[in-house]
């Protein structure tokens, strides 16, 4: 599945690059017509060809993104489900698309009933003014989209030259947090922080004129008490030090939350956190 997705992603990168600047840029300044985005039409054709898509109805998911980003390298994105995960109705998967990024398909989040809520908060890089989209697929196979236009662009906000040695020393260090008391059978908010440069391979060091090779987190699996609660296929649009806030349902008296992270160099990192639901 991962391989299939990766090759599709590569195809998209090249497809997007082949689009001429004129068409792609003509609609950049305006957030008026999300359907006119040529990158989106291309992504849609690739991922959801021929399928109906409920657009911005707001009864399945909502998307929060700043209209103007404080920092283009770390733009917070929040996708919220409008209902809890129940056998009769739940969200199976959510695609996060950033139309005008070099690789538009930024993340694919897969949820289970043990997720409790199919919410996610993460942080992304945004290269140009762009539409951001979250597309949820519910268990009945319907697609539901929420769209936001974000004004963000790289500029003078680049931090002082990153210390590559320091980043290497902490590579793969992780922390899991559970917010508040975990009550059994009710969704609990958790957070996963990963120390990782998430290099895109597209950034030139101005001082050395060298490109830093791509090295980014590509897959995260989180389980609670051995049950999968979240899988994420990720791309280099995710900001450095990837950070996910998500829900899970503690089902046992006590259990272990476990995160397994694999990056594009096939390095594997693991972190666990014991939790004990309050009675």
């Amino acid at each position, binding site marked *: 599945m991962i391989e299939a997705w990766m090759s599709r992603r590569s195809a998209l990168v090249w497809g997007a690059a082949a689009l001429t600047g004129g068409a792609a840029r003509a609609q950049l300044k305006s957030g008026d017509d999300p359907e006119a985005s040529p990158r989106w039409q291309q992504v849609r054709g690739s991922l959801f060809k021929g399928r109906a898509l409920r657009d911005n109805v707001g009864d399945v998911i909502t998307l929060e993104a700043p209209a103007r980003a404080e920092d283009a390298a770390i733009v917070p994105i929040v996708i919220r489900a409008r209902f809890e995960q129940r056998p009769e109705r739940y969200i199976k998967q959510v695609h996060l698309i950033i139309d005008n990024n070099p690789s538009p398909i930024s993340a694919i989040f897969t949820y289970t009933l043990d997720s409790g809520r199919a919410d996610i908060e993460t942080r992304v890089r945004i290269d140009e003014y762009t539409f951001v989209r979250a597309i949820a697929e519910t268990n009945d196979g319907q697609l539901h989209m929420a769209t936001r236009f974000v004004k963000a662009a790289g500029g003078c906000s*680049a931090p002082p030259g990153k210390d590559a040695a320091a980043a290497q020393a902490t590579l793969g*260090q992780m922390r899991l947090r559970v917010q508040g008391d975990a009550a059994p059978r009710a969704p609990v908010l958790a957070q996963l922080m990963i120390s990782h440069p998430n290099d895109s391979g597209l950034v030139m060091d101005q001082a050395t004129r060298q490109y830093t090779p791509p090295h980014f987190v590509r897959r995260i699996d989180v389980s609670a008490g051995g049950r999968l609660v979240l899988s994420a296929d990720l791309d280099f649009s995710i900001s450095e*030090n990837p950070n996910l*806030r998500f829900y899970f349902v503690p089902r046992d008296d006590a259990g272990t939350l476990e995160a397994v992270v694999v990056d594009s160099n096939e390095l594997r990192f693991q972190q666990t956190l014991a939790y004990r639901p309050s009675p």
Partner: protein
Amino acid sequence: MTAGGAARSARRTRGVGRALVAACTVALALGCASSAADDAAATELAPGVFMVRGSGGTAEPANAGRIGNSGFIVGDSGVIAIDTGTSYRHGRALLARIAQVTDKPVRLALITHVQPEFVFGGSAFRERGIPIRMHANAASLMASRCESCLKNLNRVLGSDAMAGTTMFVPDQVFEQTHTLARSGRAVRVIYLGHSSGPGDVAVFDEASGVLFAGGLLDERRIPDVQDGDLAAWLDALARLRELPLRRIVPGHGGATTVAAIDAQARYLSGLQTRMADLLNAGAGLSEAPDAANLPDFAAWDQYDTIHRRNASIVYIRLERELLFK
């Protein structure tokens, strides 16, 4: 530009001095937008110590990006320029201000810190053969990112305002606090470690007690914490306060006194405390800018922009500290 346009422009940049507004009113018929920036006057704060005030606000065509302060100190044998402005044209305007006051030669241009509005006028000083001096760490920071800053400025201000402006490397770098005597006047360059930014320095004129605070201090403007280390910055402000200060030229805003140091220290600690509280309460990064309101500073320049970014930056730093606890 119409009179209404001039007034709106003045309100937009909040900190514009009354003198500049008056100059605009007089200069309306001549086209204020192009002449206002060139006409920023040199104010003598103490004998031989001059400030040229920037407009405040953010870089935009109406202010030609000349938002930061600069100044110069006239000694017996020459002049030391402090910060060089935003562009080649701005640098030339600053040199013209110096020439109106004295015919002594400009010996040196000292750049206090690496923000575009203090750096890129260096092209004009370079053209005159005036050596450009900055801290070694500031020079590294400039090399690592200022090419992007310059592209950004060209995009925002236009190629006319930025004509002749180029990247450069300084002629002289230094690492420690030292006294410059080349103007025939003792001018102390003070480096207090990585505070508001790597290689940020303040400049103290011993004879008059005037301090050019550079990136370390803004007056009634939200300081940008992007390059700063908050704890070290607060220490540095406390150490500047120990100097026999009479007047202070901040990086942005009007000439001021130690009260501005205290106000900025309150802002920096208030920001740190607020973001730590939010993080501990479980707020996400998405909530940080809205939840970070600090009403005591809401009237400061750039509260709606830099403060919101500061909130996110400090939140992320504190969160990262959690990761390694």
